């Protein structure tokens, strides 16, 4: 069982879980009254980007993949969240 | 012309090439009839005002479009047959072919002929009330864009056949690409609910994304089938036995 805990994947998982809870808390108190709150949105989206990157990099083992696969997947994460943020701020 | 050989007329695969080259003709005609001729596509908004709908439904071009389509829509089964013969060569059960065939039959009627006639009927007789014309307008567009199930089963069967096939008649990534067509059908379901915005029948999410994926898929499938026909060995053809033993004719069974 201890092998499980010290496994690097589990550490990544623990990080992901805590970050998820953190982003939920940010969303909860920051935007409880449910009106536009740019800090909450940027924080939440950036956290989601980090989480996505972690899952792709470690769980999907893109860490050991050839360069083109690393570039495509991380390129997707960056492009997507950049687009999301630009559309968000453009609409304010 | 096709096949590259000078004597395409005597090519042993003439029936496949004729069926194959009828497909671009049909799709170009399809595109010309729907877009420039009758302005049915890109779809008009479900929010249009009644006078606008009545005016569109009374336009004579719809009738001409209807005539051209009723003459040419028989070619849709031919394009489906092109897919079926490639699936027949795959190492998969005939069940995939038959479900595609049944999907094709259903799709041709509910997805093409019936909506086309809805528009034709609107334009055929000036006397109809705007309520009837609006109903035909809605029915036409919803049947065109909202016919989901028959195409779901076709793309699912085609995609799965390609993925499971060991003879690698068609490339595996095309199988996954075909499965996405299934996803776009799911995405088109909300057209029956939303009357405006991105989920209406002319919306970004349901129509335009699906159109981008479908048109690109159609080109890729078409190129892959061209290669599949071209690379098929002469010995594998169904008529290969015909010139070997003229007298006895043991047709190859392929149950």
């Amino acid at each position, binding site marked *: 069982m201890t092998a499980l805990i010290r496994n690097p*994947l589990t550490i990544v*998982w623990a990080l992901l879980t805590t970050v998820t809870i953190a982003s939920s808390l940010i969303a909860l108190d920051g935007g409880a009254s*449910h009106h536009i709150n740019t800090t909450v949105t940027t924080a939440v989206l950036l956290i989601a980007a980090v989480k996505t990157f972690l899952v792709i990099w470690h769980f999907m083992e893109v860490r*050991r993949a050839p360069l*083109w*696969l690393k570039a495509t997947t991380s390129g997707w994460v960056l492009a997507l969240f950049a687009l999301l943020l630009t559309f968000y701020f453009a*609409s304010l | 012309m096709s096949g590259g050989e000078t004597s395409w007329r005597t090519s042993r695969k003439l029936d496949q090439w004729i069926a194959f080259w009828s497909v671009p003709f049909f799709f170009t005609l399809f595109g010309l009839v729907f877009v420039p001729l009758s302005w049915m596509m890109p779809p008009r908004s479900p929010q249009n005002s009644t006078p606008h709908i009545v005016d569109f439904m009374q336009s004579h071009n719809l009738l001409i479009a209807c005539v051209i389509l009723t003459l040419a829509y028989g070619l849709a089964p031919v394009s489906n047959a092109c897919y079926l013969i490639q699936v027949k060569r795959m190492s998969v059960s005939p069940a995939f072919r038959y479900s595609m065939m049944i999907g094709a039959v259903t799709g041709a009627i509910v997805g093409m002929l019936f909506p086309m006639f809805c528009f034709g009927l609107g334009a055929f007789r000036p006397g109809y009330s705007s309520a009837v014309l609006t109903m035909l307008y809605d029915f036409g567009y919803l049947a065109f864009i909202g016919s989901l199930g028959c195409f779901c089963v076709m793309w699912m069967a085609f995609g799965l056949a390609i993925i499971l096939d060991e003879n690698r008649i068609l490339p*595996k*990534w095309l199988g996954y690409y075909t499965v996405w067509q299934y996803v776009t059908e799911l995405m088109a379901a909300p057209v029956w609910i939303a009357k405006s915005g991105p*989920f209406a029948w002319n919306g970004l999410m349901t129509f335009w994304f699906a159109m981008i994926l479908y048109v690109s898929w159609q080109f890729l499938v078409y190129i892959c089938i061209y290669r599949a026909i071209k690379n098929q060995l002469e010995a594998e053809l169904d008529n290969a036995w015909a010139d070997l033993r003229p007298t006895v004719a043991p047709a190859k069974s392929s149950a």
Partner: protein
Amino acid sequence: MTDVARGSTPQVDKPVRAEARGQVPGDSSMWFFVIGDLLIFGGYFVGYMYYRGRNHELFLAGQAQLNLDIGTVNTIVLLTSSLFVALGTAAARVGNRAESLRRFWMALAFGAAFPILKLFEWIPEISRGLTPGKDLFFMYYYVMTGLHLCHVALGLVVICFIIRNVKESVAPKISFVETGATYWHMVDVLWLVLFALLYLMR
């Protein structure tokens, strides 16, 4: 699509350890599917953000009705299931079939919890009249989470196939296990973005 497979690498002679530098985990045409799916969903997400930009109040009002707790728990459930899939793949790669099997059963258990929690979330909402036809936000909410749920359902089937493969064959086909794992992680990635867009952003 960068990876138009000129015939994917034959699965038979693939080296067992994927650690060899520059080795694509799993079948390369599956990566074509994963990248394509990410692109399609990327398009849907950007579409969502665009239409949200045109009517913030409607989306904010809709979000107020959502159940954030189940959303968060669901995210953690999916992450845990993804962890066990990754651990199971690692165990299968070193040939420890018993351990790998246990981990994949755990992954299946957590994975199956996701749709159940999703129903616990949807049914009260629908009975409160928050149906897809209510407004644009709920249409997006049900269509996107619904489409994702279909991916989860397919993913659960894939995990069952992995379990069968690991349990029955003496030397489990590593590339098949990796392919299934890649698909499941993609489903997890899509949910992470969906969770942020639908539940958290303001």
